């Protein structure tokens, strides 16, 4: 590896400001620090620094996403072969391979477009390439329906990186979770292509589906008044849905990694799940009401905890709501923020007929209000200090 280091060290002067290849400066720095942790030492303040950096932090989130991603790939194949009635005749690896080949292009498009834009912005702004997109780049594919056209993925990624993040100043400055901005963009710009029954299961025009096949997600069915899923399938993820969101089990493995390493906030995760459960219970209590339509009476009476394992709720609670930049940043605020996400997600999901899934909107909404929550938590600290001063005065 020495020659690579030598190569980067030798080319470093060429990409400095004013040098011949200065337009490659950020890319050079980005690749160099990816391969080698820099030799920079402390210049002021503490002489020792923790080994943790943003690269490692982000890698751990990606690692936590891997179980859900691998399962998502498998499920893409599983739903495909189930739809065409060949599940029994296809082996495990065949199923997985089908999903892998379907998912890889989506991931590739997301990373190429997103990182490309990041490189350009880093260079224009004259700073290094920041690691935020390492996670966004994998989150975006995971919350897309498998049949999303690649050009839409590219467009949404570009929108998310530019308007969701870079206009605010880049990693650490954004107000909304960039991956959800991408999803919301597609949801509102191309509603026809992003919902309905045909986007959740990968099928080519030549595939013949079996009789009685419906590509609808269990949640869409529930909204229509049919509760026709098995709890085990919903928990382990053998249901149609966005690529990475279906398996609560795989997501919980990721949650374990995030909680054990301390990278993801357990406070947000727990309070989001609690909020969802509470709202589910409220709906249960109201399910007998005469004012509800027949379909709504069924949906309202769905056992409250089923909400947590259906749709994007679990994925959102573990990986989206916990994004440290767009979430509440005070420790007390995290409880309020998470709890309200849970409440709102289920509320939107069940009550609003226009949106089959509420998690995305709930998180984006609470991202918007997170600074307000923090403001009041901080104001509480200030108030305490002022009160103390008055007592002693």
């Amino acid at each position, binding site marked *: 590896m020495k020659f690579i280091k030598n190569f980067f060290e030798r080319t470093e002067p060429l990409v400095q400001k004013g040098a011949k290849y200065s337009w490659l400066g950020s890319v050079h720095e980005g690749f160099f620090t990816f391969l080698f942790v820099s030799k920079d030492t402390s210049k002021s303040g503490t002489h020792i620094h923790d080994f943790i950096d943003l690269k490692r932090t982000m890698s*751990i989130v990606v690692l936590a996403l891997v179980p859900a991603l691998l399962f998502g790939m498998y499920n893409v194949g599983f739903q495909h072969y189930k739809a065409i009635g060949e599940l029994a005749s296809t082996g495990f690896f065949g199923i997985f391979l089908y999903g892998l080949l379907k998912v890889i292009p989506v991931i590739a498009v997301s990373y190429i477009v997103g990182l490309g834009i990041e490189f350009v912005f880093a260079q224009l702004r004259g700073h290094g390439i920041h690691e935020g997109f390492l996670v966004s780049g994998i989150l975006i594919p995971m919350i897309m329906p498998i049949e999303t056209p690649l050009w839409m993925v590219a467009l949404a990624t570009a929108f998310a990186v530019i308007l969701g993040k870079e206009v605010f100043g880049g990693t650490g400055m954004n107000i909304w979770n960039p991956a959800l901005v991408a999803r919301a963009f597609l949801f509102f710009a191309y509603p026809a292509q992003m919902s309905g029954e045909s986007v959740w299961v990968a099928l080519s025009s030549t595939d013949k589906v079996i009789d009685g096949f419906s590509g609808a997600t269990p949640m869409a069915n529930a909204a229509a008044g049919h509760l026709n899923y098995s709890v085990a399938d919903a928990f382990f993820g053998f249901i149609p849905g966005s690529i990475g969101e279906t398996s609560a089990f795989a997501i919980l493995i990721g949650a374990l990694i995030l909680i054990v390493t301390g990278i993801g906030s357990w406070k947000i995760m727990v309070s989001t799940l609690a909020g969802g459960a509470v709202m589910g219970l409220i709906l249960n209590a109201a399910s007998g009401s005469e004012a509800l339509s027949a379909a709504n009476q069924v949906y309202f009476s769905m056992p409250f905890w089923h909400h947590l394992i259906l749709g994007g709720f679990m994925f959102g609670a573990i990986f989206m709501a916990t994004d440290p930049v767009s979430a509440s940043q005070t420790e007390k605020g995290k409880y309020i923020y998470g709890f309200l996400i849970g409440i709102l997600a289920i509320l939107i999901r069940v009550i609003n007929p226009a949106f089959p899934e509420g998690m995305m909107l709930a998180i984006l909404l609470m991202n918007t209000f997170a600074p307000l929550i923090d403001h009041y938590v901080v104001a509480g600290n200030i108030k305490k200090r002022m009160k103390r001063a008055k007592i002693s005065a």
Partner: protein
Amino acid sequence: MSEVVKLRKGLNIKLKGSAEKVLEKLPTPATVALKPTDFQGLTPKLSVKADAEVKAGDALFYDKYHPEIVFTAPVGGKVVSINRGERRKILEVVIETSEKAGSVEFKKADPSTLSSEEVKEQILKSGLWSFIKKRPYGIIALPDEQPKAIYISTFDTAPLAPDFNFIVDGNMDTFQTGVNALAKLTEGKVILGVNADSTFTGVKNVEINTFEGPHPAGNVGIQIANTKPLNKGEVVWTINFQDVLFIGRLFKTGKVDFTKIFALTGSEVAAPKYYQTVLGAPVASLTEGKLIDAGYKQRIISGNVLTGTKVKKQCYIGFYDSQVTVIPEGDEYELFGWADPGFGKFSATKTFFGKLFPKKEYTLNANLHGGERAFVLSGQYEKLVPMDIMPVYLLKAILVNDIDKMEQLGIYEVVEEDLALCEYACTSKIEVQKILREGINTMIKELG
């Protein structure tokens, strides 16, 4: 009334190279120096010229805006050079020591029999006032202010910190005399912070609070915040434990005696132990020939690894420091360092397998281990600061220069050392202490 406070937040960083409890007495060094740069916000004016002969206790320079605060020669001799930096800023006043120079005579008296004016005058004239700092701001105390109390921490929890129980051994009566003198300077009390195995519990004329918990429990600022937090408009004074001994000796002998014990520590020291020399001694007098012969660069720090100053061998030890630490510089690239499982790596986070071996002592170098970024993670600082304060919001208020917010978020209660752990642990490698000092300087400039 004494309190026992258990602190849960914080972090003990276990480094290799803690000092063995053995004291070696060094001869008086050939030169000593005072560095005006050791004093935050000081504008020094020289009282001596180059080549002047001085006795121990003669003023070398004074504070331009408070001329009564003088800084005196730790040892008698000849002022050999006054080193200046950019814009003729005074960096060092160097004295060539001489046995014959002698010392200035001060009053030899039990401070409890003196009036507070007499005590104050003696401490000011002898140059010992410069050891007394004030909170807010962590700068030298002003003689005309009335402190609510004077705080002394009798233990240090910083990495590889010297053991004050060991240093004070045999000098407890000197410490008591120093405390008696300090007690004359406040209408309030002298308040000692002690830990569980302290030998300071017998000190009289003081209030004693006991603290348990990881670093920064030994920081006087943390001790204040967890007993009687400082409010706007209030002033308390603080003084380091060894500097109380200087005051004690002044009143016991009528002479200044700046003999001081330093711990030479760190993974690069062959045999870490304690050395007795004098305030302002050259770094080399401690480290020369005592470091391991390494094939890489070493970093010498006057002070501890969290708050100390990087020094060269030909520099002098900092005024307020009581330890010298030597660690590897670590200016080397590390292949895929961020992806290393981390069995041998210490971290405040739980993202390295090193966390599974909590008793291991680590060799840490001065590498940043990553690039500087914007604030991304939250909740990281709060775990390390055992105070009712929101460090990130305070730092952000400083960054946008919002004086009202800085005040409301508690800038009066902290100095750099209290937030040093945040800087160590920061994923985004933010220069916490530098930012905080800028904020404090802004407050001093705007509010006086």
